[in-house]
């Protein structure tokens, strides 16, 4: 028995290993990861870890002993460089070839690099090494320019402002958080950024780094001691080229994690699953989705049964911005109908399409998010959802 080889030792990969053992899988389980660190949790990298008073290490996903206790073989600091699906094997960077009965692709995503933006003052924020480097730079106050008003950029902007930095956020789109929330609702999330003096500029097209900071396409220069590029993420699927699985903005999967190739599965940021609740077939870069997908794939592999309900939970995401908790559940589109309310403390936004509720956003209202998530799962109609929201925000 060749067992299960999992490539990518982070949230999705570790969750697959855990799910396999929980479902009684007895064969060998191998977890191959390019990073040399024991698998850790990524969300704190742009939150707690950037603060001066927090420990420099993010929480481990599992203690070292867990891997031994569960007979999960860890191959850390090793990168898969090629898939040979016809031979049921993956090749590692040192030339070793691992054969498998099942392969799980869990290689996640990496920070998008922008042309013209490089040099020693330019940072990205994806892994522990990136976060430690940025944390070190933040120790001495200065001027930070964040490119991109997405969640990671806004979290880092908040952390830097709390550490005394002067922060400018430059965003090409006309509003913050457009990619996830569409054009209308992001404003609810950046109230505190504005109140704390962070300079948020929209419609700002950045051309390149220059000695003084960054130069915009209109020629103007924004001075900076450090630049953080928060321009989204791209899936780590390059190593699969020619390997025999279909890749199209992530490894294409059904609602159970099966790829185009029998015996090959994928989960997490690197995968594009079909969601049975929303009907969408999109890649999501969210903690909960990575975990849910991994659990489903593991169960299917261990039990040999990919029947039953597939991935049907509404995608869910949270973010911490200053002392505020932002939570979002579902799928919004640029042209969704949006209903928003703010009561001085809490914010709630609903997103709808036709007669259907399709997403819920809350700021500092976790209870409403929990209830809203339930409404999504129950496929609540738009009118009923708005009536609920109005009452809830009174």
């Amino acid at each position: 028995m060749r067992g299960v080889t999992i490539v990518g030792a982070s949230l999705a990969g570790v969750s697959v290993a855990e799910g396999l053992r929980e479902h009684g899988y007895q064969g060998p389980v191998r977890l191959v990861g390019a990073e040399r660190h024991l698998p850790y949790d990524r969300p704190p990298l742009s939150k707690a870890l950037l603060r001066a008073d927090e420990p420099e290490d993010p929480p481990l996903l599992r203690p070292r002993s867990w891997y031994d206790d569960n007979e999960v073989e860890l191959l850390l600091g090793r990168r898969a460089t090629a898939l040979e699906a016809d031979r049921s094997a993956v090749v590692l960077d040192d030339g070793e070839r691992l054969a498998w009965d099942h392969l799980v692709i869990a290689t996640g995503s990496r920070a998008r690099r922008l042309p013209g933006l490089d040099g020693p003052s330019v940072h990205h924020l994806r892994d522990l090494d990136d976060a430690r480097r940025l944390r070190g730079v933040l120790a001495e106050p200065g001027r930070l320019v964040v490119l991109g008003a997405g969640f990671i950029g806004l979290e880092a902007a908040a952390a830097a402002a709390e550490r005394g930095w002067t922060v400018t956020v430059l965003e090409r789109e006309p509003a913050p958080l457009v990619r996830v929330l569409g054009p209308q609702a992001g404003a609810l999330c950046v109230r505190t950024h504005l109140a704390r003096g962070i300079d948020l500029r929209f419609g700002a097209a950045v051309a390149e780094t220059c000695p003084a900071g960054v130069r915009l396409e209109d020629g103007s220069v924004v001075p900076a001691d450090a630049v953080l590029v928060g321009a989204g993420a791209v899936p780590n699927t390059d190593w699969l080229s020619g390997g025999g699985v279909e890749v199209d903005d992530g490894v294409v999967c059904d609602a159970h994690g099966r790829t185009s190739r029998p015996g090959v599965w994928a989960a997490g940021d690197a995968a594009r699953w079909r969601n049975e609740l929303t009907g969408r077939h999109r890649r999501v870069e969210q903690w909960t989705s990575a975990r849910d997908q991994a659990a489903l794939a593991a169960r299917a592999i261990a039990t040999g049964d990919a029947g039953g309900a597939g991935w049907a939970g509404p995608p869910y995401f949270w973010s911490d911005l200053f002392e505020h908790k932002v939570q979002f559940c579902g799928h919004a589109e640029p042209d969704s109908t949006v209903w928003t309310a703010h009561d001085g403390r809490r914010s709630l936004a609903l997103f709808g399409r036709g007669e259907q509720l399709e997403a819920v956003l809350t700021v500092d209202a976790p209870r409403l998010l929990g209830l809203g998530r339930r409404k999504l799962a129950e496929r609540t109609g738009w009118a009923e959802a708005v009536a609920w929201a109005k009452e809830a925000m009174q």
Partner: protein
Amino acid sequence: MKITVDLGRCQGYANCVAAAPDVFDVDDATGKAVLLAAEGDAAEIREAARSCPVAAIGMEE
């Protein structure tokens, strides 16, 4: 069944509310989880415990 929430760890992510809405709630004022019931659907509660990003939920069956 014994369900516990370590409020020192809890960060109010409400993953538990989504997983087991009859058992967990989150207080909007404190931002911490609240137990609504001493027991409930074991599979849902196990899912809540597993989906908590800070592993604040304990369960003994």
